[in-house]
């Protein structure tokens, strides 16, 4: 079996990469360029609202270089979890950027587009027929939660991507994907070991994060052989080490030995990592165990209201020493003032310099000589969030307490205006497994000829 070479340019499309690294990566003569564009890490807003979390300009920069490279070398380019969350809005956003780049660069190619949206009716039927199960410590899914969700996506496996490659796609633009799928698709199509292909994909999806020094914006090379794979960062100032590669297997996962995905699990109990040169690591022994049923992870988010915040500092030692009582007092005054709105708003004070990051889990909740306070109000109606926040902010500014010296005001605001409308607030509503009859069932592949 001839070795298959994969190039992962960056951890997330739009995070960038040095051109020198891309050039060095190309010196390995890669058979495929693949890039993951998504993550649920930045929270529910992006899936819920359909907005990207990487800027358009940054994505266009990366796509210009990657499309130019892939087309000049006549190698496939696969993009997974387009736009960050991989819903139809994200996919369309990324498709438009690709079309713009193609026009500007005079590129022509055959493109496959694969949406990953789960139709509400399909999920409701699945729920009724016992095809949905919770994934980890998550709430039970109900019909009303499905109906309230704004966007529902499922993580596709390699099968729809392979269908796109079989159909002659030069560029594959996919909605939400299981992160390693864009890397594993071509190798599995070419009959390489799925265990090694998925494990290599796991490492490549974060590009040079698995190197030392790590970077989310640099290229990584993977070379897949029959019984092992090799990884090496493209940038010469970085190295892949036994520890850096093995440690990456832990990253963002619950259990490093068993990594479940669409259609089965990656089993790393027999995996070994070997340093074979200064900058290169070999990995072997990873196995893919097919599951009895083909399941995909479904992600959903729903809108719960609007957020308004205010940012302030406090320096007065007497104010800081009585902060808990003052916050309780402000909450009580706010409650009293908005009696008819009880239960309709959420009011929170983040106290930085004490426990703003860890809250009740903070092991050392001691006030500094100054504290930063973020006041936050969330309500279904933006006007209510704004009224509650404004009231709480002005009440805190002028709150009287025993021994108060700074009677002109308790808070230092860095900005005018002091209050900010953050916009809509979403929460994750679905994080469940859905059983499919076949892997492509909800991932229709369509082809288009891009001509410039």
């Amino acid at each position, binding site marked *: 079996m001839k070795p298959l070479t994969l190039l992962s340019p960056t951890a997330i499309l739009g995070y960038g990469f040095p051109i020198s690294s891309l050039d060095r990566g190309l010196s390995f003569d890669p058979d495929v360029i693949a890039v993951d564009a998504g993550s649920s890490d930045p929270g*529910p*807003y992006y899936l819920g609202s359909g907005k990207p979390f990487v800027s358009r300009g940054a994505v266009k920069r990366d796509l210009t270089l990657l499309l130019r490279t892939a087309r000049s070398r006549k190698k496939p380019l696969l993009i997974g979890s387009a736009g960050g969350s991989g819903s139809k809005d994200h996919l369309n956003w990324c498709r438009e950027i690709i079309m713009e780049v193609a026009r500007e660069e005079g590129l022509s190619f055959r493109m496959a587009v694969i949406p990953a949206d789960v139709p509400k009716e399909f999920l409701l039927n699945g729920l009724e027929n016992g095809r949905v199960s919770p994934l*980890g*410590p998550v709430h039970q899914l109900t019909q009303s939660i499905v109906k309230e969700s704004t966007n529902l996506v499922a993580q596709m496996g390699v099968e729809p991507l392979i269908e796109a490659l079989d159909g002659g796609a030069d560029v594959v633009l996919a909605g939400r994907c299981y992160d390693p799928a864009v890397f594993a698709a071509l190798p599995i199509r070419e009959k390489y070991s799925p265990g090694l292909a998925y494990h290599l994909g796991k490492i490549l999806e974060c590009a040079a994060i698995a190197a030392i020094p790590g970077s989310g914006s640099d290229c990584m090379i993977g070379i897949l052989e029959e019984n092992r794979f090799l990884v090496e960062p493209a940038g010469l100032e970085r190295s892949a080490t036994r520890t850096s590669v093995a*440690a990456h297997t832990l990253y963002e996962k*619950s259990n*490093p030995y068993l990594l479940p995905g669409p259609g089965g699990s990656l089993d*790393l109990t027999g995996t070994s990592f070997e340093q074979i040169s200064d900058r290169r690591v070999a990995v072997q022994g990873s196995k893919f165990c097919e599951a009895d049923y083909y399941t995909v992870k479904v992600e959903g988010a729903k809108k719960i209201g609007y957020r308004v915040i205010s940012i302030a500092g406090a320096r007065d030692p007497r104010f800081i020493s009585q902060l808990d009582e003052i916050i309780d007092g402000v909450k009580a005054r706010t409650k009293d003032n908005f009696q008819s709105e009880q239960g309709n708003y959420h009011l929170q004070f983040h106290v930085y310099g004490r426990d703003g990051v860890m809250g009740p889990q903070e092991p050392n909740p001691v006030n500094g000589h100054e504290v930063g306070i973020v006041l936050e109000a969330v309500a279904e109606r933006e006007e209510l969030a704004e009224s509650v926040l404004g009231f709480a902010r002005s009440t805190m500014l002028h709150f009287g307490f025993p021994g108060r010296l700074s009677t002109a005001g308790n808070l230092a605001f860095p900005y005018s205006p002091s209050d900010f409308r953050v916009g809509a607030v979403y929460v994750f509503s679905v994080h469940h497994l859905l059983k499919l009859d076949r892997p492509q069932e909800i991932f229709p592949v369509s082809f288009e000829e891009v001509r410039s």
Partner: protein
Amino acid sequence: MKPLMDLAQVIRTKNAGPFELTLDVIFRDWETYNRVKKSNALNAPLIAKIYGVPEEDVLQAIYFDPACAFKATMKRQMPCGNLGERDIYGAQQNAPLLELQIPWGDDDESNS
């Protein structure tokens, strides 16, 4: 006793999906790792205690030889981004681990 931060090269936390928080301790070398592993100084009840959560909320506590690492995964305090959230990525929740005292035997006390 030695603080964990003197024994490890990485002590990090991160979301493992929106509903779980996972913490990784990567030790500085195989000997250190093996010594901690053999004494089982890091374990699920201890993680529950220092994070102030019920033991059943610690879903996994595993030693991973290939990376000289200990890994524990907990139920998140709340789903990522729910009202009350403080750390969307879960990347700054390592503080309770840093000063954690690991039994190191009397012989080493004089050297520490």
